[in-house]
């Protein structure tokens, strides 16, 4: 994050913006985002083909948030995630095959097939898991921050949650103790515009980021589809937590390009948004914007093609691995309730 290069964020637009990292780093971040996108697109496809045993909540359109935040974290830092959690997992762990195998419900899945899409976790990489309870990760992340603070490990904890979860009472309780105890915690709200099937504005009063300020927590809205903006804001918040100065709240404004859950049109009696709205927002999606930025930095088609080929091959291999993996031994259904 040292080599600053001057360029314009959108071609032809002034003033130019300086990158907080090298072009190579930007390309790395883009690759991570692309990995997530490709996994999610393939999951959408195999879900429609009836290949998956359970529902999937896809992260398409929000990739910059997970990638931009997790770029600041090491394996000893913690994250707690949401039901839309594949992206957070893939931003912090390289175990793509084990993630896909878990969603397939196979023995080789990262949770042995006992968690599925809503519980993908790689604890060895500091991932406490996706979570089926809206807002469930907030308190888990707060607890991880309490461990870090109490034992002086220097670790930082990030709690991802959606705009829907912002309306769970646990957020107020967590903000209070995080401020009171100066916990090394970054609360990242991904406002993707929808609380399940309800537009945010119909269920949420005021602005979510402002909910941190009365507690004295530095809080701000961020363009969550801009990898550079996410990276910058998360960097400041993570550094602040690591220094021991306490928690931050970031409201990443993004947009959920897929439904709340795949195949939702098969059971919804009416729509909650128009196709025109989705198409308009697609023009602002984070991979498109990152590609545009990279092109401005001189990254050429051959370089993009190389990244796409590499990530595509990784994802192909992960899905082949998952589909070929055995089902879990039924005896495992009766294990792991107690340590």
């Amino acid at each position, binding site marked *: 994050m040292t080599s600053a290069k001057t360029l314009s964020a959108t071609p032809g637009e002034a003033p130019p913006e300086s990158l907080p990292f090298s072009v190579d780093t930007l390309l790395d971040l883009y690759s991570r985002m692309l990995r997530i996108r490709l996994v999610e697109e393939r999951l959408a496809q195999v879900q429609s083909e009836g290949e998956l045993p359970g529902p999937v909540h896809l992260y398409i359109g929000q990739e910059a948030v997970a990638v931009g935040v997790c770029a600041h974290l090491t394996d000893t830092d913690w994250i707690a995630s949401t039901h839309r959690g594949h992206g957070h997992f893939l931003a912090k762990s390289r175990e793509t095959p084990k993630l896909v195998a878990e969603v397939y419900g196979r023995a080789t899945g990262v949770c042995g097939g006992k968690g599925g899409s809503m519980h993908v976790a790689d604890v060895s990489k500091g991932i406490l898991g996706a979570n089926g309870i809206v807002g469930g990760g907030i308190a888990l992340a707060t607890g991880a921050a309490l461990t870090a603070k109490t034992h002086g*490990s220097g670790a930082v904890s990030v709690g991802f949650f959606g705009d829907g979860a912002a309306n769970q009472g646990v957020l107020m*309780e967590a903000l209070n103790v995080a401020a009171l105890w100066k916990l090394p915690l970054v609360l990242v709200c991904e406002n993707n515009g929808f609380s399940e099937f309800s537009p945010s504005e119909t269920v949420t009063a005021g602005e979510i980021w402002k909910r941190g300020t009365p507690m004295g927590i530095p809080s701000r809205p961020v363009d969550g589809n801009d990898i550079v903006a996410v990276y910058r804001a998360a960097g400041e918040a993570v550094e602040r937590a690591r220094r021991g100065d306490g928690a931050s709240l970031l409201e990443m404004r993004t947009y959920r390009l897929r439904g709340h859950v795949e195949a939702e049109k098969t059971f919804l009696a009416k729509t909650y948004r128009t196709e025109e709205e989705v198409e308009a927002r697609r023009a602002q999606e984070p991979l498109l914007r990152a590609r545009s930025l990279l092109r401005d930095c001189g990254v050429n088609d051959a370089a993009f093609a190389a990244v796409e080929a590499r990530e595509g091959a990784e994802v192909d291999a992960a899905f082949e691995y998952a589909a070929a993996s055995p089902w879990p031994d039924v005896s495992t259904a009766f294990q*792991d309730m107690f340590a």
Partner: protein
Amino acid sequence: MAKKRMVQAINEGIAEEMQRDPRIILFGEDVHISPIGDTRGLIDRFGPSRVINTPISETVMTGMAVGAAATGSRVICHLFYGNFIYTGFDAIANQAAKLRYMLGGQVKLPILFMAMIGGGRSVAAQHSDSMHPILANLGGLNIAMPATPYDAKGMIKAALRADSPTFFLQAAGRGGEAGEVPEEDYILPLGQAAELRKGDAVTIVAIGSMVKPALRACDELAKQGIGATLIDPRTVVPMDYETILRSVAQTGRLVIVDEARKTCSMASEIAATVVERAFASLKAPIRRVAVEDVAMPYSPVLEKAVLPDAARIVAAVRDVVQVEGATND
């Protein structure tokens, strides 16, 4: 052995384990001042980074306990009155009881949830529940219900060395009761029932707060010439069914005393298990002495009418002893 009060025994057990293991942290409402005394003085010994006063925020407390435990702390989450378990129930039911399972065994969750439960003190329905059957139904939680200071200290120390979430439910208002507690270090493993009386006519299983009235009932029954075996399971998860079944095989009769409401009580569960596993040895129907399906009332006259006592236990025992001959024995 020296006599110690229940809260002293608990306090000593926590202090010894916190001294032994620096990973243990304790948090809860008013744990510094400790109105009931079980955590009194720990702040002075272990400091504010390990003994943490929380706001009244059970929702985040129970979830935080899971997050802290999953990341290397050993957590004591003090919930004060048992009914506040309901306020923090989401993370208990959805995270603590399931996270290890959902993650395929990737995490250990060494959490001790402490609360005082049960009625008898005119604090009415929202401070008097006995919710151990609700917790037992979740499947991933150990549940200790000590009836003596000796058991309390031995089990809290065992729970603090365990790697799974454990509820430590003490009978409310009974912290002042004294009992023998040895000076030396000892552990009472979870899942071991105690046989407190030995008799041939009937087996009485009494849980937690019900052990005391059951002991009185045994004394009264002895005067009437009825010998009762009294079993205190000490933990309801894990439940020491072997001890119960062994006794029922000898007596052929079973009375279970539980302060939970009767529907889906632990008494119901024990009865069902004994019927499944030892039907042939039963000489009489099993009787449950539990709280009828009402909330706990405030007035002492009403509360006394609701709570099981020695007289009700004696009556239930006489009932099952008298039906001998009516069965195919």
